[in-house]
């Protein structure tokens, strides 16, 4: 079955990827950094979207998994001299293990209680880890090795692409159908044979694994790790904002949201004390005016809606 969540025709996708491959050749540090931020945001938005947009489990603690992934890979690099990309993988696995450890008790909670439990996890870990001298305390720590910017660019691009393809594949799979059913009505999904807890845990673990990888790669590309900034609530808020702006529960939405946020965030950097306030206001405005995000608004245009229908009918 063709997924009806696909937004870009195949040819456009190939051309886009090809053009993105050329960006480092421009030798513009600004362009490279801009796109690296975009890839990081896409990874975070897609991974959170899998859990919140598809399975309906709103977490406010995505920063916990970004932070723990970064911490694990920083420790490996600093004290064991592990190869950079092995440490990234371990960072992802650490985030996955943390998700597995908290998932059963957290999923006893629903709705806002689940959201606040994840928020609490991020804050608790931030307090505990910021007291650890091995991670540089509150001042952060420099990592011994700075990897090539171009290589870092391609790795982040691949991660964003793999995350997007993963979410796209899940959206058109039986697992995806199960997740959406859980989002829609948990009791009915369970009564129709969906192992709700198992599916939620699987989505949560995958989502956190990807967030952990993103955190690890980010710390590696900065050659720096700081508990306070990696566990900062703004990571979670930015992630929620991107998905809400773009369109929750779609594959294209988080990409659109990430592009908008990278522009927005660059502009908001001139207002360091106001950027969280402005993002909060934008979130409220989007929730009120366009609850289905940019994608939802685009689908109100008849020609785009009929194009989507054509894709849907290719079964």
């Amino acid at each position, binding site marked *: 079955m063709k997924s009806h969540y696909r937004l870009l025709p195949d040819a456009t996708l190939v051309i886009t990827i090809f053009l993105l491959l050329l960006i480092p050749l421009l030798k513009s540090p600004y362009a490279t950094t801009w796109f690296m931020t975009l890839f990081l945001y896409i990874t975070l938005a897609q991974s959170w979207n899998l859990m919140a947009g598809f399975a309906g489990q709103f977490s406010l603690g995505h920063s916990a998994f970004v932070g723990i992934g970064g911490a694990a890979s920083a420790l490996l690099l600093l004290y064991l001299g592990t190869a950079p990309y092995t440490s990234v993988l371990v960072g992802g696995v650490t985030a996955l293990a943390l998700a597995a450890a908290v998932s059963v008790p957290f999923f006893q909670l629903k709705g806002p209680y689940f959201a606040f439990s994840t928020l609490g996890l991020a804050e608790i870990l931030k307090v505990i880890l910021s007291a650890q001298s091995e991670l540089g305390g509150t001042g952060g720590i420099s990592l011994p090795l700075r990897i090539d910017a171009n290589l870092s660019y391609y790795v982040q691009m691949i991660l964003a692409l793999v995350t997007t393809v993963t979410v796209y594949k899940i959206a058109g*799979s039986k697992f995806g*159908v199960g997740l959406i059913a859980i989002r829609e009505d948990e009791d009915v999904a369970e*009564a129709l044979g969906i*192992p709700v807890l198992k599916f939620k845990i699987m989505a949560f673990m995958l989502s956190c694994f990807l967030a952990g990888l993103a955190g690890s790669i980010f710390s590696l590309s900065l050659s720096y790790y700081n508990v306070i900034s990696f566990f900062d609530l703004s990571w979670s808020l930015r992630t929620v904002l991107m998905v809400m702006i773009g369109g929750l529960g779609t594959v294209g939405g988080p990409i659109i949201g990430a592009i908008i946020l990278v522009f927005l965030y660059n502009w908001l950097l001139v207002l360091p004390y106001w950027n969280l306030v402005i993002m909060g206001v934008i979130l409220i405005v989007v929730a009120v005016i366009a609850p289905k995000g940019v994608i939802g608004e685009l689908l109100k245009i008849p020609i785009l809606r009929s194009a989507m229908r054509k894709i849907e009918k290719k079964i």
Partner: protein
Amino acid sequence: MSILEVKNVTVRFGGVIALDNCSVDVEEHTIVGVIGPNGAGKSTLLNVVNGLLKPNKGDVYFKGKRITGLSPHKIFHIGISRTFQPNRVFREMTVLDNMLVPVAASAHEEMSALAKKSLSMLKFLEIDRLIHEHAMNLSGGQKMLLEFGRGLMSDPELVLMDEPFCGIHPELKQRMVEHIIMARKRGKTFVVVSHDIPCIMETCDRLVVMSLGRVIADGPSDEVQNDKRVIEAYLGI
């Protein structure tokens, strides 16, 4: 042979006794109607059978195997499906995706094969033209048919239906009656909870009448409807 046995089940919600030492047997390949006034415990009975509620006392057996306390998804996979009242289709999902949910966690077939199976079920129910429509856009009757078809997708042995004739056009009601009878001929067993006495009489082989959490009458439909206790429970005379 009994496919379903509910034995001495009691369910309490605080001080309210929803099921009071209730026992019901369902024979294979039959359609059993469950009727009774509001608060009689009909929906609670279905919730206990499919695992949404755990009884305070008593047991449920399916094909001789005790299923009390199993989670709803496990009960579904051993062959018990159900519909809800009011209908609970997945509103934001298309008709096709709704049909795929019951097979999402079990079937080994590819999505394309499952989509074809869904289409043939929707054709049987005469709502195949709506396959790509979002369920929220369907009429009440169409939602009922969708829920019915969704309940049959996993090829269950026993289907529990909660008020399948509620609030739908007489013509659609008739279609629903015919579909249930046809599915029984294909080897399914049904337990149908309803207030719609004419439809229940037309559909069911046997009637179980409940009042205040107890079974007050049980037998062939035509006999039960003339039972004094039943008339009393329904009409209060």
